[in-house]
Structure formats: C-alpha cells, structure tokens
C-alpha cells in the first residue's frame, strides 16, 4: 500500500525512550525509537524477546507495565502527547480510540464474566452506545470474524470457548468502539498452525473492513509479512531496519534481518545406514487414558539408535501423553514398551536405576524444569552422583566436561544460578543434565518452543552435534514443522491420539500426503507476502 505515505499521520512516536527497573536500578530498554503510523496502515514490529517490541506497542497506548516507565520522547496520537497526558485523559482514549489484543486470550479474558459482558464494557463505560446496541453489534462482529454460533457464543464464559475462538472474540472486543488504532501483541503465538490461519485471516479482514490502523507485534517474520504494509525490525531496544513489507522480504539491508529471514534453513544430513534389527525403543499398540477420557489409541512407534524420530501434532494430539507412557509416568491401558528388545515395566517406580538412566528427558520450559535455588554445578552434578556414583573432584571434573560439551565456559558457569542465565543457556543446562546420565535415548518435549528462533536454531544444531558425537537417539515432540524439517530422520504425525502417518522424512514430506499432514504442512506460514492469500484461495476452490 504505497499511498500510505500520503495519508495523514495517526501516531507519531519520536525519540521514544523507556526504562525498566531491575534491582532498584532504572535501565533504559528502548533507546530512542521513532515510529510513524498512518491512518489505516498496518505496521509490523518484529524482533526477539527483549527487543522491546511489546513495550513499544504498549507505549502507543501511553501505557507502561509495572516496573517500566516512559522516560523520554513524545507520543503524538492525533494532537495529544500520550507521554505527557493525564491518567484520566489516557483512560478516555484507551478502549475507545486505541485498543489492545493480548497474546494469550485465555489469560486476558476475565474468567468470571461472559464474553459479551466483557465486550460491552468498553462501549458502555465510554458512553459510546447503550448496552442493547453494543450487544447486537457484538453479535454482528462475531459473525464477521466467522465465529461459530455468533448469536450464542458471547453468552459463554471464556473457559467454555477454544483458544482460536477466544482470540477472535478478543479482536471483536478490541473493535467494539471502532478504534482508530489496535495494538496486536503476538495474537497467534500461542495457537496451533491450523488455528493460526483462521485467526490471521479474520484479523486481516476486519482491520481492512473498518480501515483501522494497527501495530502488529510478533517474533515471526513469516506471519508479519502476511499482515503488515510496513515492517520495523527491532533488536535490544533499537531500530535495525524499516521498510515496506515486500521490499524487506525480498531485499533485506541488514545482516540481522537476513539472519531472521534465513532462520529455518538448518537441515540435518539425511541418514545413511539401514536400520539395525532391534529398535532401541519399541512402542507397541499403546492405548492410554486419563481417568475415563481416552487419549491414545493403538500407537506404535520404533526408534532406532542414532536416529531422530519427530512426533508432530497440534495441542491435544496426545504426543506429550505418549512421552509420559514411555517414561512410565502414565500406565497404558493396553500395549507394551520394549527397550532394546526387552519389555520395560509400565510403572516408572518399578524400573531399575539403569533403565531410568538410559532414557532421559528435556522439557519445554527450562525455567520450571530446573531448580532456581541450585547452582549449575549441583543441577548437573546430581545425576552424576545418582546414576554413576561420582563424588567430589571426579564429579566436578565431569560437570566441567559436560559444560564444555554444551558450549558453555565451565569457569564462567560452574557456580551460576539459573536466574542469571538466558533462556537458551538454561535449556543448554537441561541438555547437560540429561547427558550427565549417559543416556542412549533422549525425549525432547517441545524443547525449542519457548525460545527465540535464532536461539532455537543454535539449540537444534547443538543437539545434532551431540547426536553425531555420542550416537544418541532422539524422540522429538513438537508442533513446529520447521523443527521437524530441520532435525528429523523419521516423522510420526499424530491427530487426536492416533498416528495418521509415519515414515522416513523424505517420504512423509513428499506428496502425496495424508490429508491431515497436508493441512499441517500447508498451514506453516512462508516468507511470502502473498502466501496467505494464495492459500485461502486454494482452499476455497
């Protein structure tokens, strides 16, 4: 949309500086950024965590989270400087002329009130329309956003509605007062890829219908290129690069932008040797249930030594439950797990130390998987003591070796606490802890989902190097097909507790696909501004 330059400016943030407080000291986290937004324009803000993109997005509403403050610059919204405006005048703008859509709709809707009550709140409180009118308007918007049963869905509570529907209901809520500007803060990050498409297209349509200006915040360049007219790349609170979407994707100027564009290029070398006779792990006809709710139906998987088997599926497909069955945390109702040809006791309490040692896990959230009150040396040293009986100097020497293997300097990290580490470093510590037990198979449960893309790629490369050096087998649980493409030898696609397709990577990723695999594959956003349009057109036919 090149005519955007000629349209009048809606928002002009100039020399924006924001400070955050850590340990009673104010530190600058946004260092003088300029943002200009025209009426009806969609601006994409992209960057990794810590880039300041959400902070800038909230500053466009004159809002700073607790522990943050706007310390410099002007935020001109029409004729008002939001940086200097009083609380009351800001309150009158928020919700009515500037609205917000949060990352997790499940957390951002109040669990105690019905959706439509929360919708009507802003228009009624701002005195824009009476309750009855707001209600019929809500039903109209729910319909435009393609929510099922638009007349009834508003009368449900947030927990009675699915994630993708909630995110659309939140977009409707933001639209309630027909604002001039909506700030979308990672609205699809928490959603499955197939759901993401519905939400993306719904958001794009409604923003165009009402000619609303929007700031679209995300860490995913492929997503933002579907949505935005113009993109700003941010890093460490500074602007890296700014430009029209198409130009930026086709001809990035800065190295950092190029890194972001090429982030999913890592590929494992296709494996070579034929499979040996006995698989390292054989899961045979497993069915399992939580209480009376069945979760897994007749799942069979083989994992061979030195191989990576990727288990893909959306949330609720049963892939993490499968890991719980393999590790013995959940007893299957039917079927068996064989390790190296021998049956494993279904209950982890009945497995001996060696059976436990050979099978280790790495989890999605390194923050919650390691004890924040323990030093790195204790975290990694514990399995050395427990499984291998190493003590004192032997143990410390081995901890240092392991730290070197995960590419962290032993002198620097040996005595650190997890709180002093970045997300990627914490995940490396989790990897070292798993390695300490000298396992043969590691189950990686969404290990890169909580990490920034560039950091995630480094972790994948590390895991690959460790596999090559130590001959590990991996079971890689993920919802992210880019990860699957990068690391898998074999792919297992799961849907609602059943395996719908499995086989070597080349076979599963080459057409013809199973219908569900096709849906999954085609739903992964590509770095092409026309991708969403083309896809929707294809699916319509």
């Amino acid at each position, binding site marked *: 949309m090149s005519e955007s330059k000629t349209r009048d400016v809606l928002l002009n943030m100039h020399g924006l500086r924001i400070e955050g407080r850590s340990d009673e000291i104010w530190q600058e986290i946004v260092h003088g950024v300029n943002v200009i937004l025209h009426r009806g324009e969609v601006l994409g803000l992209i960057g990794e965590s810590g880039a300041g993109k959400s902070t800038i997005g909230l500053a466009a509403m004159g*809002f700073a989270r607790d522990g943050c403050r706007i310390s410099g610059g002007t935020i001109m919204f029409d004729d008002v400087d939001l940086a200097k405006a009083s609380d009351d005048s800001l309150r009158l703008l928020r*919700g009515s002329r500037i609205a917000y859509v949060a990352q997790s709709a499940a957390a951002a809707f*109040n*669990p*105690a*009130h019905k959706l439509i009550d929360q919708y009507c709140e802003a228009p009624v409180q701002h005195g824009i329309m009476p309750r009855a009118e707001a209600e019929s308007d809500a039903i109209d918007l729910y319909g435009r956003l393609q929510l099922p049963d638009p007349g009834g869905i508003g009368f449900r*509570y947030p*927990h009675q509605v699915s994630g993708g529907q909630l995110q659309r209901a939140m977009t409707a809520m933001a639209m309630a007062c027909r604002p001039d500007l909506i700030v979308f803060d990672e609205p699809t990050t928490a959603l499955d890829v197939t759901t993401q498409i519905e939400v993306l297209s719904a958001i794009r349509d409604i923003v165009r219908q009402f000619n609303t200006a929007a700031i679209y915040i995300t860490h995913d360049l492929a997503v933002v290129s579907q949505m935005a007219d113009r993109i700003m790349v941010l890093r460490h609170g500074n602007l890296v690069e700014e430009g029209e979407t198409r130009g930026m994707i086709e001809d990035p100027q800065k190295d950092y932008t190029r890194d972001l564009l090429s982030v999913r290029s890592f590929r494992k070398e296709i494996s070579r040797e034929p499979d040996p006779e006995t698989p390292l792990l054989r899961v045979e006809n497993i069915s399992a249930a939580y209480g009376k709710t069945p979760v897994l139906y007749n799942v069979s998987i083989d994992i061979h030594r030195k191989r990576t088997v990727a288990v893909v599926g959306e949330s609720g497909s049963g892939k993490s439950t499968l890991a719980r069955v393999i590790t013995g945390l959940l007893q299957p109702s039917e079927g068996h797990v064989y390790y190296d040809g021998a049956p494993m006791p279904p209950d982890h309490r009945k497995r001996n130390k060696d059976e436990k040692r050979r099978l280790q896990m790495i989890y999605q959230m390194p923050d919650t998987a390691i004890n924040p009150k323990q030093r790195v040396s204790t975290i990694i040293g514990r399995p050395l003591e427990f499984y291998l009986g190493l003590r004192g100097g032997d143990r410390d020497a081995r901890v240092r070796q392991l730290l070197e293997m995960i590419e962290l300097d032993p002198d620097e990290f040996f005595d650190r606490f997890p709180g002093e580490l970045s997300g990627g470093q914490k995940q490396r510590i989790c990897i070292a802890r798993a390695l300490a037990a000298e396992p043969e198979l590691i189950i990686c449960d969404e290990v890169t989902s909580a990490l920034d893309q560039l950091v995630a790629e480094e972790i994948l490369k590390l895991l690959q190097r460790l596999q090559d050096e130590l001959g590990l087998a991996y079971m890689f649980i993920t919802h992210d097909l880019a990860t699957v493409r990068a690391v898998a030898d074999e792919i297992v696609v799961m849907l609602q507790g059943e395996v719908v397709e499995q086989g070597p990577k080349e076979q599963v990723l080459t057409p013809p696909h199973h219908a569900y695999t096709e849906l999954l594959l085609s739903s992964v956003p590509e770095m092409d501004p026309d991708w969403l349009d083309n896809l929707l057109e294809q699916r319509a036919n």
Partner: protein
Amino acid sequence: MPQLGRMVAQRLALGLLTLFIVSLIIFLCVELLPGNLAEAILGQAATPETVAAFNRELGLDLPPHERYIAWLINIMQGDFGRSLASQREISELLGSRLQNTLFLAAVAAAIAVPLAVSLGILAALYRESIFDRAVNAVTLTSISVPEFFVAYILIIVLSVNLGWFPSISNINDGLSFWEKVYRTALPAFTLTLVCVAHMMRMTRAAIINLLASPYIEMARLKGLRPGRIILKHALPNALAPIINVVVLNLAYLIVGVVLVEVVFVYPGMGQLLVDSVAKRDIPVVQACSLVFAATYILLNLLADVLSIMSNPRLLHPR
C-alpha cells in the same frame, strides 16, 4: 450442579466423622480433668458412703467406655442429659444461651464483615497510600492487643467516661430487638476490633495478588475506571480466599467469645462454659464443646461450598 450436591454430601459425612472423633477427644479430656465431681458437689458432706451413692446415681461408677457410649447414644436422640448444678435439661439451657451467642456473633459480623471487606477493597485501590498505611497500622494494633484489654478500654471510654453504652450486656427475651442490639454494642465492638484486621488484610492481599494478571491489564487498557477494575474484575476472582477467611472469623465470633462474654457478663455459651467448668458441671462442659465443634465444622463446610460456587469453571462446566 450434581457435582456440588455430591460434594456437599461427602463433606457432610466427613464432618459427622470429625464430630464423632471430637466427641471422643472431649470425653477423654474431661476424664483427665483433675478432681472428683462428687467431692466438689457434696463438699463437707462427702463421706465415702455419700460419694459412692452419688456416683452410682449418676452412673459414674461405670467404666469410661460404657459411659461414653451411653452419652453418645443419648446425644444422637437429642438428649444432652441434665446439668449437675441446676438439674435443668441441658438442651433447654443450651438453647437460650446459644441463641444469645449467635445474636452477639450476628451483630458483630454485621459490623465487621462489611467494614473489613470495604476497607480491604479501598486499601487495595489506594495501595501504598497514606490511607492504606493508616488502615493497616490501626487494624494491626487492634489485633495485637488482647481482647479483654480492648474490652476494658471500650468500657472506660464509651461507658464510664461518655456513658453511651451499658458496661454490662444483660439481655433477655423480654427486650425489643433494638434494645438488645444497644445492650450488645460494646461486646460487638470489641469482637469487631479483634477480627477486622485479619479479614481486611486478606481481602487486600487477595485483590492485589490479581492486579498483575493479564485480564487486569486488559481492563486497564480498555480504559476502565480504577474502582470498576477492582470491583468488577479483581474482586470476583479473589472471592475464594476472602470467603474462607471471613467464615473462619465467623467461627471465631461464635466459639472464641468466651473472654469477651465473661468481661461483659453476657449470658452466652462462653459464659455458660466458664461457669460450668468452675462448678465441675461436666455434662454441660461436654455439650458446650460439642456444639462449638459442630459450629466450626458446619461453617468450614459453608466456606468450601461458597468458594467452589465462586469459581465459574465449576459453576458453568463446558
């Protein structure tokens, strides 16, 4: 709501079991009390023969387990036995006393609960302000002082010096409702001062706990007024802990009033309990303890049910 019904039934059954265990403990504790009932009652006339006759008449010569079972069976039929001191039916005695205690608790609760919850909400709304600090300081001071001391201070100021309220809360059935309220005022104020701090601080903490949650941020970004955010968005989600602490304090108002009733010579359960202990009127002591235990159990059940009902996930299943 079938789940809720089942849960209430379960808790009630558990409550009955608890009550049974409590009755056992009460009985054992009373058995362990030093002194001999017959000697205490008969005084100078306690010759070995009269003591033996006295014990036989009351069934005190039977072994403890037989007496316990007999006591339990009678209670289940609604018969608490007779008071040793006055020879009146205990159930009759308890009836009016319990009524008076409940009346005092109700007056105190009618002042304390709304006061504590509104102070808590206001303190959360104006957190870190002078008002917040002042409320915290005053309520903490009042909870830190022993209740009988608070009671005497109130008597000196409001009764002796100002003469607004009677210092002795003598009530009976012949009085009108407002006359009763007037006479109950001082003990009610005392109880209010003692229990407001707890409820107010819990209300404040439960609300402030939620202020960092995304839906509160969302409410602020919708441009809602701070008062509306607290009342409409934070309070409904903070109800469970608030209900629990309120009900716990209601239980205190009923069973914890012994000292206050004694100071104001108020004819309630606490006063009855103290008198009966002094007179070694064991059946009355046992009956009072059992009623107190039942009150506690019932109120806790009520707290559980109410906090479950405050959770929309349980009230409106998918």
